């Protein structure tokens, strides 16, 4: 099935259902539960949690944002936000012109100096910002006419995305005099002043955070009067809060709660391509000595055989319910615009057995475990014990591989220990999940030869395939970047550095009283300011 064809109608339906907005006073309250507490909802300054990101997106705009297609390639794919337009000077230079109406919530206009200041600030080692995704940018300067001139290291169709979407300006007039290390604990961090549709109102630590509509927001009057984020870390507690009417929306609704929410009748589901992907990662290096290749998993035929033994569709369905996909490359649904490398995810045990035999794995001693040169096909898998989804996946893998003569030892471990084991490469197989960036180019952060050699990189499996790197890096420079990315995915699928267990959709339950509901792929809540409450369905808290 072509994923582009299957997903596009869902997205388009959501977006086309939005009538023209009429400026009127904001009304209504939206209450949302967050699994992670928004402790510092400021770009680059707080821990990079989804809790912080979801609130940050309401307070701080970007120069440009993703359009309805969620494409990141092409100068015209992005939609203006702080920048009203951009123009290409040459193949490696783009000028962004700020919208003259854009202003900080204290009334100060947003200027090119803010962007330049932010660009310089994020290079401070005290902030520990991961600059990998911004590597395409060579410099950011202000022109004499007040425009932002961004120079890039090479021609690429993702230049506007990189500078426009990944740079989120901070107010220079408020922060420039502070040392970088002091900003995170400053008054500004406690009560941030942004340039987005909502203003920071108050935060009750450990409980809630409230934003109020900014009537002077330059892109239009927000439809909602206030947003209230409740810190509810447990998924079960989030479902209960939704069913009891304490919250209005819930994202990533678990499959187990679908029936109860549907039956309750107050909510409808909106589905958007999710940016989460779960995969079973093979370690390319020996866990005991990272300089050596892994004695079993460095063999591509063995990896292929292991992958063919797994019924990914069954795992995905059980873990995430309907709407889940099983791509062959490590790619979430948010990259639906690229397409390619997708299958039904069924196991092919006949081909798996043949592949094991071809790789030399045969049960010579009749103990039920395949062996080669006297070495049994025995592997360990690590995963965080706190994750019930990962635990279920590990148990299913163990059963599926046992049927094929592979012994898998389960190692559920405490979350931080799991992170450390991953970081230091002390594992055979690892179950991981990732919220992927909007661009497939971000695969370079975890799946490139450069990151394989860099200490502390997120390429914890030390995967390096120069051909995949070449295809991925070349894709944005091609006249048809989509087919370039598709070729990279196909290469990754054949190379098999991991088994993709599931790429779930983002299933969002929304209270029936909301209209103009827009949910964006990759960044679900960036259009929240356009949501409204139907006048005839207001609750006391909406007034």
């Amino acid at each position, binding site marked *: 099935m072509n994923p582009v064809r299957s997903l596009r109608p869902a997205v388009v339906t959501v977006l086309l259902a939005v009538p023209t907005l009429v400026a009127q006073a904001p009304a209504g*309250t939206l*209450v949302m*539960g967050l699994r992670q507490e928004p*402790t*510092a909802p400021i770009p680059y300054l707080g*821990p*990079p*949690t989804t809790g912080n990101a979801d609130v940050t997106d309401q307070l701080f705009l970007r120069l440009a944002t993703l359009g309805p297609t969620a494409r990141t390639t092409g100068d015209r794919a992005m939609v203006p936000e702080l920048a009203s337009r951009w123009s290409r000077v040459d193949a490696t230079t783009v000028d962004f012109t700020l919208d003259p109406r854009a202003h900080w919530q204290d009334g100060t206009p947003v200027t090119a100096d803010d962007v330049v200041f932010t660009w310089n600030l994020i290079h401070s*080692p*005290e*902030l*520990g*910002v*991961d600059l*990998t995704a911004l590597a395409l940018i060579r410099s950011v300067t202000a022109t004499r006419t007040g425009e932002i001139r961004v120079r890039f290291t090479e021609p690429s169709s993702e230049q506007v995305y990189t500078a426009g979407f990944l740079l989120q300006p901070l107010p220079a007039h408020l922060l420039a005099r502070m040392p970088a*290390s002091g900003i*995170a*604990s400053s008054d500004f*961090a406690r009560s941030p002043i942004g340039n987005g549709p909502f203003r920071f109102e108050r935060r*009750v*630590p*450990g*409980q*809630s955070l*409230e934003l109020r509509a900014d009537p002077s927001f330059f892109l239009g009057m927000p439809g909602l009067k206030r947003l*209230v984020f*409740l*810190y*509810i*870390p*447990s998924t*079960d*507690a989030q479902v*209960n*809060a939704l*069913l*009891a*009417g*304490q919250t209005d929306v819930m994202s990533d609704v678990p499959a187990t709660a679908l029936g109860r929410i549907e039956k309750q009748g107050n909510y409808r589901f909106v589905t958007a391509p999710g940016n989460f992907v779960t995969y079973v990662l093979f370690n390319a290096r020996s866990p005991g000595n990272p300089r050596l290749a892994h004695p079993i998993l460095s063999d591509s035929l063995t990896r292929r055989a292991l992958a063919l033994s797994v019924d990914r569709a069954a795992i995905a369905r059980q873990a995430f319910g309907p709407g889940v996909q099983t791509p062959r490359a490590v790619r979430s649904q948010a990259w639906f615009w690229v397409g390619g490398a997708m299958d039904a995810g069924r196991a092919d045990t006949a081909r798996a057995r043949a592949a094991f035999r071809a790789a030399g794995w045969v049960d010579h001693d009749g103990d039920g475990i395949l062996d080669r040169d006297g070495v049994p096909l025995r592997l360990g898998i690590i995963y965080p014990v*706190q994750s019930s989804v990962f635990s279920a996946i590990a148990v299913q893998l163990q059963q599926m591989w046992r049927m094929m003569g592979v012994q898998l030892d389960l190692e559920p471990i*405490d*979350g*931080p*220990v799991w*992170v*450390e084991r991953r*970081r230091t490469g002390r594992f055979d197989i690892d179950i991981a999940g*990732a919220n992927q960036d909007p661009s497939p180019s971000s695969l370079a*952060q975890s799946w490139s030869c450069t*990151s394989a050699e*860099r*200490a*502390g*990189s*997120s390429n914890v499996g030390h995967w390096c395939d120069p051909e995949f790197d070449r295809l991925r890096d070349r894709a944005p420079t091609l006249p048809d970047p989509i087919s370039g990315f598709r070729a990279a995915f196909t290469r990754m699928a054949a190379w098999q550095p991991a088994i993709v267990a599931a790429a779930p959709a983002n299933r969002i339950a929304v209270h029936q009283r909301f209209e103009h509901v827009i949910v964006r792929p990759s960044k679900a809540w960036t259009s929240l300011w356009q949501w409204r409450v139907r006048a005839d369905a207001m609750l006391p*808290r909406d007034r």
Partner: protein
Amino acid sequence: MPCCPATARMASWVVRRLAGAVLVSIIGIAVLVALVHLLPGDPLTAIVGDRALDPASRRVMEHDLGIGRPLPVVLMSFFRDALQGDLGHSLAERRPVTAILADRLGPTMLLGGLTLLIDFTLGVLLGVWSALHPRTRAARLLDSLTLATYTVPGFVIGLVLIWGFAVHWQWFPPALIADPLLPTDASTWTVLIDRLKHLVLPVTTMVLATIAVPLRQQRSAIVGTMSQPWVTAARARGVATRRVIWQHLWRPALTPVISLLGLWLPMVVAGAVFVETVFAYPGIGALLANATAQRDIPVVIGAGVVLVVVVQLGSLVADVLYRIVDPVQREPV
């Protein structure tokens, strides 16, 4: 010259007991800091998550946050700062740990205090009643019910209560400690009612999960005291039944319950972690669990310090009550 030798003896004993508690607390906190220091896992994860950090940034951040220092240095600086009321800054929140603890201590004391109050009033009264009416149907029912709720994990009781009273009937809210939508200028009465509504389900859960212990402790203590000679003598002297029960039977049977109180106090502070999770209740237990999972070391230590102090406080309160209730304890040795 003190007017009352007994009072002076008591005051002197309390001072000595307090000094002992401080010493034990210091040792306990030192052990706690050392153990937390030895925990496996990378604390920088609390800040950077799984994102890539170049070695230079990693070094700067580790230095700024005091990660990777040797244990003696950590201990020295911890006690030096703690004496000035500084327990450090949260790695995840970048706020002072004392401020974070202050936010969480109130809700925890409220939940724990109410649980304690109900357990040790209703539980004790039911224990006395149950001991005096051992063969009645009601006593057997009470016994079975409290045993059942004791054996079921607290979070399961919480989920059942939420399903019934929050989701189905919507009488009480299922999460948090207060309604964040309440206007800031709401009347005290409105705020009070709101707080009480939020407390009903978590407190009921905690009480149902724990009340069996003081109830059974009190019942067996009463049953054990019933056969004591002074009770038989009082009855033989024709002392009124009510007086026999409360003066000759209940008071001596209170000492095991008081020792339980000493153990109970830290339990209700730290042991509410599952209930706090189910109800998204912003208490110390959930904070400690979350901070441990994130390796937010200063917060783990700060919450641990609170628990050490509460344990010592519980023990001190129990000892003082012992001496008040039991005259033998007050006699000079």
